[in-house]
């Protein structure tokens, strides 16, 4: 059938002046602006859009929206291509390239193969021999024919936007629009989202008049009013994909997909994160297909979809229509078909005596209405060519089937409310006998359902209920009285005869022998599969879902689930209500990873924190180390230098001359109040009460269980003021720790904490010549050892800037840590570099810092400790004062029997016997290198470096009972099979008396 036959000459919401060329599975085709890919394919006479999942059967377009199970396509090319889109939801653009995800030869060949795959095939095969899955997975995944994820980096931009609104209206059909108008009228902040490119929902294909005018005119008026309202935000092309707790919802807005690949310009998709006071769910309903033999033949469609293609897209997807319905509403499709002058072969109505207004209209139009009958089987090869119908009494067939010729079968089995979002919140849908459908469960006071999703069958009813929902939601959010202020437009609603429930059409052969009666098109689940599952003992609908794959596809069973549940109920002899539905989960339709990631990619993935001297380090070619979010220079290689050479140079400069390090990242907390010392005494193992003003003290911070979690130096700045240093990575944790104890346990203490980490820029000036260098730029502090001793702090000016200078040392050398407000940090750093130039001042990074401190046996919390170590384990009993009046956090736990074991891992130094090999950090230590597994582990290496000063490797490690094993040998087996011998030594390798830092 040619394109010219299928596209009507006039009508629809397409723009015939804008032709669009596109390619589907290699075929060049043409459509119009306003088309979806599906409507354009139908207009071009493309019947087969793919092969089925399991049986390789030809499949055509069934629906016109999110429910489409067959026309699953991959759109675009290269890295920006998107797999798994429903052709019914892809807006056509010029140059669009689409491929069916299930058109491979594999699928075509699958027909014979698929017959060997009964329900539960995977389960039966792979539960008995689990190893087989590993071997077969690749083949089967390919055979499954889902779209292929592009392998290049996504060139497009995605982002996120947050919203707060009084009323979020989901769905801009008649109910949603009415709700939005009403809520906006009361002054509520309204967000109206709809997944389609145009607002209007079913009104876009409506042929009746609303309030005496066309549906299109009413729609235009409503949209203009919403647009003019200052408190409504309209979000077309936005799928509400997730409905989470506390009325938090996510919407995926497709901003540029309808324009084609426009990688560089703007945002492709935007994830809206909505926090709504009230949610109006006006998501409509999806027509229920009818399950009969060979109901998957191309040319079998939903009745509402046929009407939508005819009315909205001006496409007639066939010549002669046979309508199969269980309700009055379906008659409208035959009337639409008749109106455009095409042949209606007959209306097959499963009911005995339908008598509603639409029925009368059909009869009046001369359409043959065959009551009390059903289509029992569709006939055709790759397209419907006819149907077998038979008389249907109660649930059994009567008489002899007869054959009718047609090329299109429209099915209307009633409506399934689109209740997925409500179900996502964890509220099970409930079966309603009167509606003949599952309806949303009780969603609580924050949600109102309106229109077809609430089971409302008529347009007039949807308009009215929508308005009431809008008023109710607005009122609950604090706007208005809850009464509607506007009357719904008049719509001609003829009386209707009750619908008949028909979930599985009988066939002369029994279900297991009849031609396949498909329930779930996407995953090829048939009525007989469900009956088989029931026979094999499955009762829970959730188990049957997993066993048969019913509703497991990317469409989450939007078409098939209810029929499947009903067939299961029948097989189990239960009520549908008793069986219930499976749970629907986000996302309503598949969402891209891009939308979820938003802008948090590349340079925005995780913020980098920079010190005021960052650019200087960059200009000096620093290699970086990430410490928490901070960027710290790791070392500064000169041209041609290896990392080890740079480290040697930096370390020796600190030991012999003068070196400088940016220590701004250390956590700093200002502590004020009369109980500052008491607080510190409770937090730290060390005592602070007697610390003199202007003096500093090292402290260990323990958890309640007595294990070390932070350390640092605290200085007493005044009578009631201290400054605490924390490790870089722990600054926030320690601050929260202090506030937690102050606020929740010790409110009686007069103390305040303020984070000043960012306020201070810190330059650590290190080495025998550091005093000389500092003296050049600091004239108002007496830097001599007598006036300014080790572990003291002085205030003065450095390079003309008010500064605090600490004589503390993490290197064991004479050291001055110069602190200035960060806004002056770079200038003061530059001044120190200038002052040190004549002494070849050497910047050093964290790696040299590690070497210098390891030479001194100083631990790094988190490297040499692992959260299980006590002060005694690290040989730092000297920093613990057990006789404080209040005690300190972790104090009592130090007496736990386990903490007192003598064979606990203890900090030791490790010296390799060959004096050449640098042990690997993390290397395991054993006593007997010949021992066969399982090998008892004596300990492990925590820090290990080459020391340029000592001209040999040094290492720290934790060894069981290590403090008592000085001089003994341990062995470190390496990955390459070598075993390195090392002696247990004192962890202080250099200047054990600490004389150098005190000069």
């Amino acid at each position, binding site marked *: 059938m040619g394109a010219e036959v299928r596209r009507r000459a006039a009508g629809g919401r397409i723009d015939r002046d804008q032709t669009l060329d596109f390619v589907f599975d290699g075929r060049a085709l043409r459509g119009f602006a306003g088309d979806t890919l599906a409507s354009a394919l139908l207009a071009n006479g493309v019947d087969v859009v793919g092969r089925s999942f399991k049986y390789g059967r030809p499949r055509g377009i069934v629906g016109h929206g999110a429910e489409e199970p067959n026309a699953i396509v991959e759109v675009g090319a290269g890295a920006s291509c998107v797999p798994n889109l429903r052709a019914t939801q892809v807006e056509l653009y010029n140059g669009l390239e689409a491929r069916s995800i299930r058109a491979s030869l594999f699928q075509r060949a699958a027909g014979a193969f698929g017959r060997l795959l009964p329900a539960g095939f995977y389960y039966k095969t792979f539960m008995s021999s689990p190893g087989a899955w590993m071997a077969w997975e690749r083949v089967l995944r390919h055979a499954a024919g889902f779209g292929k994820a592009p392998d290049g980096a996504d060139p497009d931009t995605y982002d996120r936007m*947050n919203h707060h609104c009084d009323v979020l209206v989901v769905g801009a059909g008649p109910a949603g629009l009415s709700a939005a108008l009403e809520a906006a009228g009361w002054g509520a902040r309204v967000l109206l989202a709809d997944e389609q490119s145009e607002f209007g929902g079913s009104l876009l294909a409506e042929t009746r008049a609303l309030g005496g005018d066309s549906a299109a005119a009413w729609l235009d008026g409503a949209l203009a009013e919403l647009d003019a309202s200052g408190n409504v935000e309209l979000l077309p092309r936005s799928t509400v994909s997730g409905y989470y707790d506390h009325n938090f919802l996510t919407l995926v807005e497709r901003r540029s997909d309808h324009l084609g690949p426009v990688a560089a310009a703007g945002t492709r998709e935007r994830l809206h994160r909505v926090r709504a006071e009230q949610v109006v769910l006006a998501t409509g309903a999806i027509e229920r297909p009818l399950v009969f033999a060979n109901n998957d033949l191309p040319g079998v469609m939903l009745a509402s979809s046929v009407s939508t293609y005819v009315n909205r897209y001006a496409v007639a997807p066939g010549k002669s229509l046979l309508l199969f319905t269980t309700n009055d509403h379906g008659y409208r499709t035959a009337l639409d078909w008749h109106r455009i002058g095409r042949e209606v072969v007959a209306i097959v109505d499963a009911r005995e005596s339908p008598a509603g207004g639409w029925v009368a209209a059909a009869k009046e139009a001369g359409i043959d209405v065959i009551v009390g009958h059903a289509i029992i089987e569709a006939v055709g090869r790759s397209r419907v060519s006819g149907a077998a119908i038979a008389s249907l009494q109660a649930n059994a067939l009567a008489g002899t089937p007869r054959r009718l010729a047609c090329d299109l079968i429209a099915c209307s089995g009633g409506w399934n409310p689109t209740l997925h979002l409500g179900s996502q919140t964890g509220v099970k849908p409930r079966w309603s006998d009167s509606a003949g459908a599952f309806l949303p469960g009780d969603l609580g006071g924050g949600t109102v359902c309106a229109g077809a999703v609430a089971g409302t069958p008529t347009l007039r009813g949807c308009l009215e209920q929508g308005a009431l929902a809008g008023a109710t939601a607005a009122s609950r959010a604090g706007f208005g009285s809850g009464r509607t202020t506007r009357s719904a437009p008049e719509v001609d609603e003829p009386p209707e005869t009750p619908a008949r429930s028909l979930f599985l059409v009988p066939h002369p052969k029994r279900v297991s022998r009849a031609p396949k009666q498909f329930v779930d098109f996407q995953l090829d689940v048939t009525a007989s599969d469900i009956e088989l599952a029931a026979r094999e003992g499955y009762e829970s609908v959730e188990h049957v879902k997993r066993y048969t794959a019913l509703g497991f596809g990317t469409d989450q069973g939007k078409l098939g689930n209810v029929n499947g549940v009903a067939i299961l109920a029948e097989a189990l002899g239960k009520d549908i209500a008793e069986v219930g539905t499976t749970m629907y989960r986000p996302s309503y339709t598949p969402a891209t990873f891009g939308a979820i990631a938003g802008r948090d990619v590349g340079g925005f993935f995780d913020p980098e*924190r920079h010190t005021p001297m*960052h650019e200087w380090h960059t200009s000096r070619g620093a290699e970086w180390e990430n410490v928490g979010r901070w960027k710290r220079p790791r070392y500064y290689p000169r041209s041609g230098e290896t990392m080890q050479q740079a480290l040697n140079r930096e370390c020796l400069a600190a030991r012999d001359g003068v070196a400088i390090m940016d220590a701004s990242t250390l956590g700093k907390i*200002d502590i*004020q109040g009369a109980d500052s010392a008491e607080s510190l005494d409770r937090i730290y193992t060390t005592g602070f009460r007697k610390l003199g003003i202007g003096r500093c003290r090292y402290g260990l911070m323990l958890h309640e269980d007595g294990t070390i979690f932070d350390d640092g130096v605290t200085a007493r700045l005044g009578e009631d003021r201290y400054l605490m240093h924390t490790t870089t990575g722990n600054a926030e944790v320690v601050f929260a720790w202090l506030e937690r104890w102050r606020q929740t346990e010790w409110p009686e203490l007069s103390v*305040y904490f303020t984070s000043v*980490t960012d*306020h201070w820029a810190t330059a650590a000036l290190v080495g025998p010549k550091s005093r000389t260098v500092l003296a050049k730029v600091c004239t108002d502090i007496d830097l001599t050892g007598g006036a300014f001793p080790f572990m003291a702090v002085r205030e003065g000016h450095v390079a003309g800037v*008010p500064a605090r200078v600490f004589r503390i040392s993490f290197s064991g050398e004479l050291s001055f840590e110069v602190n200035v407000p960060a806004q002056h940090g770079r200038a003061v750093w530059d001044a120190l570099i200038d002052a040190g130039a004549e002494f070849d001042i050497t910047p050093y990074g964290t790696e040299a810092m590690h070497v210098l401190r390891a030479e001194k046996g100083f631990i790094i919390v988190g490297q040499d400790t692992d959260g299980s170590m006590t002060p005694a384990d690290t040989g730092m009993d000297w920093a613990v004062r057990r006789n404080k009046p209040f005690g300190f956090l972790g104090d009592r736990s130090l007496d736990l029997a386990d903490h007192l074991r003598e064979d606990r891992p203890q900090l030791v130094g490790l010296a390799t016997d060959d004096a050449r090999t640098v042990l690997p950090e993390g290397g395991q230590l054993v006593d007997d290198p010949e021992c066969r597994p399982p090998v008892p582990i004596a300990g492990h290496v925590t820090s290990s470096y080459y020391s340029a000063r000592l001209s040999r490797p040094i290492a720290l490690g934790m060894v069981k009972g290590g403090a008592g094993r000085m001089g003994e040998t341990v062995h470190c087996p390496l990955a390459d099979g070598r075993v390195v011998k090392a002696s247990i030594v004192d962890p202080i390798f250099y200047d054990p008396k600490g004389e150098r830092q005190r000069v």
Partner: protein
Amino acid sequence: MSEPPGVVCRECPDRAFVNVRGDVGDPRLRDAVAQVAGVDLPREPGTWNQADRSRAYWLGPDEWLLVVEGDDGLEVEGRLRSALDGHFSVVDVTGTQVHKELSGPDVGKVLQKSSPYDFHPRHFPPGRCAQTVFAKATALVAAREDGAFDIVFRRSYADYFMRWLADAAAEYGYRLD
């Protein structure tokens, strides 16, 4: 002439920032701040006061950020310290803070892209302030009478923050003054 930008970011230099902690019920605290900075400490959570060159932002039940234009943080800290008595804490945090002013017709959109907080004028009218998540950092955001917003954030995040702002505002037209 090109379109006026939807978002303009302006640096607010030359300000002293002092973190104040104390008991708001203690008149000595309120009086000292009023005397030194000429501004009343806001008692209403999530609000800020302005007087002449000074602003006081509520940060918590016992914590405020005092901003004084054209002054020195250490000196303001010193003056407050002399004027105060009892249990309090005053700390110069000028080095911590970067202060920007965001204005323009699309500033609300950029805030929506950056923070889950509700900055709509109905919820966040002039006079309100909030410490909140801003992209993957944090910021103090304050609504001003002229429709612009004051944004105060940590210096170490400035590079990330300014790149984020420029990126989020690009679609509306962005100018950095």
